[in-house]
Each structure stands twice: as C-alpha cells, then as structure tokens.
C-alpha cells in the first residue's frame, strides 16, 4: 500500500512537470496549424521513463545523398 502511494505521488509530480512543459511548448504555437502539446497517456511518465521505454532506436551514420547519378 505504501509503495502504491509512493508511486501515485511520483505520477502526480510527473504530471505537474508535464503541465509546465505544455505551457512552455504551446507558447510558441502561434498559428492555427502549429503543433499543440498537452495531456496524453505519456503525461504521468518522467522524461527519463519515456526515453527508456519508447526512444530505443539508434542511427548508423548514413552517407550524404549525392543526387542524381551521372552516366559516362
């Protein structure tokens, strides 16, 4: 029960952090088509938890695209 309460407390804190982030991110959205940020199902995750769970891809360095190939 104590663990559950601690978890709920943490979730509430993450949610409060998320709300602050949303206000900041939305302050740049001036046009109707601009991105909107707000509460979704990731809002009670810390940014660290979100990265650990969902952002697990790595990129290998790719060569620059060289445009159309020329033929001799």
């Amino acid at each position, binding site marked *: 029960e104590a663990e559950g309460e601690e978890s709920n407390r943490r979730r509430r804190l993450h949610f409060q952090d998320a709300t602050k982030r949303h206000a900041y991110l939305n302050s*740049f*959205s001036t046009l109707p*088509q*601009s991105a909107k940020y*707000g509460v979704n199902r990731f809002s009670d995750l810390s940014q660290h938890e979100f990265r650990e769970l969902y*952002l*697990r891809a*790595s990129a290998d360095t790719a060569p620059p695209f060289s445009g159309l190939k020329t033929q001799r």
Partner: protein
Amino acid sequence: LPGKFDWRDKAVVATVQNQEACGSCWAFSVVGATQSVRAIGGWRLQQLSVQQVLDCSFRNNGCSGGSTFQALSWLKQTGVKLVPQSEYPYKAKTGICHFFPQSHGGVAVRNFTSHDFSGQEEAMMSHLVERGPLAVIVDAVSWQDYLGGIIQHHCSSKWANHAVLVVGYDTVGDIPYWIVQNSWGASWGNEGYVYIKIGGNLCGIADSVAAVIV
C-alpha cells in the same frame, strides 16, 4: 514534384500500430516500409511480422532497442522472408526466433539504400515519391507531449532515438510538412501520425533515411 503526395491515398500504407511498452520502433519502421513497397509493386497490402524482426535480427536488441540500418542489413544479407503478422503475431516482448523453411511464403528485402538528406529535403521528397515510404530515425523527445498539428519548434536533430515511417508530404499550405506514421497507436497525435515542418531538418528527419527494395 506534386505539391502534395501521400502514399495512404494509394492504399499502400497499413494501419497505425502500437509498439506498447517495448522499444521496437526500429522494427515497426522497417516492416512498415517493406510491406508498403511490396504493395506499391502490385501485391496485396499485407501486415508483415514485426515480431519476427524483433526476435531474429540478432545484431539488434529486441525490445531494448535497435537500428533500422542493422535490421535492413540483416534482412538483405540473410534473405530471410518476412511472414505475415497473422503467422508470427506481435507480443511486445523479445522472444525466441522462429525459423521458417525457405519454401515458406513471405517477403524478402532484396536491397535498401540509406542516406543523409539533411539540407536536401526537396530531394528527399522526390525520393519518397520514387521509392515509397521511407524509414527514418528522429529525435522524438518532445513527442511525449504532442497532441497534433505541425511541429515547427522544439525538435532538435542532435540525438536520434526513434524510428518512424515517412509516408507523404504537403507543401500546399502556409507551412510545408512531412506526414509521418508513428507506432504509438492511433490515439496518439493526429490519429497516430505526426506532422513535421519541411526544411531545417527538424527532429533530424533527414539525417538517416532508408528506402527498401523488395
């Protein structure tokens, strides 16, 4: 180039999937590109097995993460055929690789290209039209809070961490944007899609771009 192009209009893009609590975006991106390119070739659009790539692409780490380049290299080098999703369903956890005989039906990746299009997003648009949906790696840190609309700010290109599928673009309106399919379910973003402004390599969308040949 047309002002607007969307592979969904040609019915070659499968529905939005949900990777759940598993770092399998790289597998969704590769499988999404493969099944679309196959459908562009005239075959019926069929969901292919993400779980097969997750379990069997040994240079990657299953739900702990992976790279689209490594997955495509593995598919090309081994000639493994991707079986339909119905035969090897998604479980959102890494499992033991199931092998199928070569005689078993499936889709093989014959080749692929991987390029950095940063500073050349118009060429990337052309690439998309010519080659089909593109598997790309982005920095998606700010996507945790995304609800919809066109991302124009707060999306750096410094740290690639998430694989997605670019399926179209729209340059007709005031803000030109990429149409990108994510794998976080249809309730996220614009029915599972995110729009990213074209130009400036936002979110690093042009840094690592792979096209599949089947």
